[in-house]
């Protein structure tokens, strides 16, 4: 396939096909992908601004029945090391977040075997009492709640929303291709179910993000299939605010034998995401997996957002990756790339 023609097509603002996406990933060089992604990013965001959100990842439990092979965070239900955060601990974490200028919390946890839906409703009401935006419960959690409570997904979402849920994080997407899901995370919701939760949430007026965790058992074509599924749903609902691709971190997981995705492949995948997802406004850099230097460079490979300051992060840290950045460091990196850093909220309005 002719890379030059694909490039011209994309620069002209035309949508590229899945086949063209695969060709770009396979045959486009780093410079070509970077130039293209950067041009599209500048077209979508002509102002030299890079946003970030001040928040904290709160993992209410690490007990999980899913046992995904790529996860170093979970504890099996019979493992005595597993725990559930008390409301008092939650409250403390939220107050710390607010004291640091935080506007939201990212609330996610394992698929706990027996907490009822009421437990989560109560948790949301408790957090809401502290007056902070709740970005919580990724689609696998919502599907799990629906199964445990024998309620339809829509009703679960309505109840969570009524209890205080504001928006939904794009976690648990991994690779939106059932072959890969069955091989790596057979107990987690399948592709249609993941997308189904997002579609319902968008229908209820909740904004969400979408992620992709790549670099394990998937093929390049399956990565592009993932992008295509997200793009199709976005055409229908327009509810995704941002896309966040990040590479699988193998240490301490059941897939620890796999080689770690390199920075080179990360930047290519990031750029392809920007090029392919013409209907999603924002692409986030993954500084927590890539570190400050590559994250800064990401701003030239399609990213216009630094994601969260992650006052707390546990899941990637469990896989042996220890990058930490303060809000000030993020601002310095953004300025060093010739852009203006701005704190934002989940919906990308500026603080």
């Amino acid at each position: 396939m002719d890379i030059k023609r694909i490039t011209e097509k994309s620069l002209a603002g035309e949508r590229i096909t899945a086949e063209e996406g695969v060709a770009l990933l396979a045959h486009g060089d780093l410079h070509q992908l970077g130039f293209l992604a950067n041009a599209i990013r500048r077209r979508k965001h002509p102002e030299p601004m890079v946003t970030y959100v001040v928040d904290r990842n709160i993992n209410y439990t690490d007990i999980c029945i899913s046992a995904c092979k790529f996860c170093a965070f979970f504890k099996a239900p019979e493992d005595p090391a597993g725990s559930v955060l008390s409301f008092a601990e939650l409250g403390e974490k939220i107050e710390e977040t607010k004291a640091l200028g935080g506007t939201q919390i990212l609330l996610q946890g394992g698929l706990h075997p027996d907490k009822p839906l009421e437990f989560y409703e109560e948790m949301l009401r408790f957090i809401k009492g502290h007056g902070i935006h709740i970005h919580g419960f990724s689609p696998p959690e919502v599907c799990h709640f629906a199964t445990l409570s024998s309620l339809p997904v829509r009703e679960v979402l309505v109840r969570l929303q009524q209890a205080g849920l504001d928006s939904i994080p794009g976690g648990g997407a991994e690779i939106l291709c059932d072959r890969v899901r069955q091989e790596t995370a057979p107990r987690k919701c399948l592709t249609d179910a993941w997308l189904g939760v997002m579609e319902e949430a968008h229908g209820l007026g909740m904004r969400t993000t979408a992620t992709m965790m790549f670099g394990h058992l998937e093929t390049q074509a399956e990565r592009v299939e993932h992008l295509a599924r997200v793009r199709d749903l976005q055409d229908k609902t327009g509810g995704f605010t941002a896309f966040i691709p990040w590479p699988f971190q193998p240490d301490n997981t059941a897939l620890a034998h796999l080689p770690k995705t390199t920075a080179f492949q990360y930047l290519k995948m990031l750029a392809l995401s920007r090029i392919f997802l013409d209907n999603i406004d924002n692409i986030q850099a993954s500084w927590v997996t890539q570190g400050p230097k590559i994250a800064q460079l990401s701003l030239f490979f399609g990213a216009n957002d630094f994601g969260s300051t992650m006052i707390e992060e546990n899941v990637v840290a469990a896989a042996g990756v220890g990058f930490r950045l303060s809000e000030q460091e993020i601002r310095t990196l953004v300025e060093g790339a010739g852009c203006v850093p701005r704190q934002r909220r989940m919906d990308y309005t500026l603080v």
Partner: protein
Amino acid sequence: MEQMVVAAGLGDILEKVRAGERLSVADGVRLYKTNDILAVGYLANLVRERLNGDRAYFIYNQHINYSNICTNLCKFCAFGKDKESPQAYEMTVEQVKAKVRERLAEPITEVHVVGGIHPDLPYQYYLDMLRGIKEVRPEIHIQAFTCVEIAHLAGLAGKSVPETLKELVVAGLGSIPGGGAEVFSPRIRQRTCEKKLSGEGWLEVAKAAHRIGLKSNATMLYGHIETMEERVEHLAALREAQDETGGFLTFIPLAFHPKNTELHELAKTTGIDDLKNIAVARCFLDNFPHIKAYWVMIGPKLAQIALSFGADDVDGTVKEELITHMAGGEAGGAMADTELIRLIRDAGRQPVERDTLYNVIKEY
């Protein structure tokens, strides 16, 4: 893609790079001041591929820092210590030999020896150290003593620099590393390392080495208090010296690491700074065969990306490196050759194991 370079305001520099024409100091400053790192990287990659194709070199080497005792105590250095400091150390020749002996089983082709400007180790110590290393590992190439140390040794010996170098060569010296260049500007040296050999002095030692047939490397320590103009002037001085002697093999931009130095309040260099120094050097130093992305300083991730932004060398399987490590360098001290090879290949380049003088040992 070329339209993007033109859009970044670098169309004329693109023409020059395409024609193989030399860049002016003003061109160099413009490249440094360009925000579009992709455009600068694209230009550098054109030069890189013209000179070195897809090859990405690495070396299997061993670093020995024989002493951290130093009378210069440069403000940007976390390694050098006063003789009275509790952290001060010096190795005996026997200890240096033991370090070499420890790793005889590994396929090391180069030992890289640098240290502080020690107030009272005698000239004989340095000759004995070279001979001692050769005794333990006769076939090894010794790359030792920055130009700053060589000038100091000549002072100790009471001989001229060329005479001293000749004696060191007889004792086993194979080539000279690029350290101690910092930034040549007298303004910078006065403010950060006033006791150190001057920029002119550094260049004189390098050229003297080249004239007796030794090869050497060159460095620039960037990211402290230097201006863009001072960086380009530094590069211009190196380019001029290289025109004269042709003895430089590799230019290695070194990122300043502030932790534990007197300049600790300065910010660390960012990825864009690091890549830009590699890319501008590749465009500007048209007579240098190689540009190195020293992964110990900038991290393996960025070093991999640098292979598309002008660099054709990533140094090697360094172990026991202390100078960057003491200043808070975050990359691990050692990387397996299999990982280096994987990173290079994954970036679409061909891994080539080399010796110090860029003779090919193995193509992967």
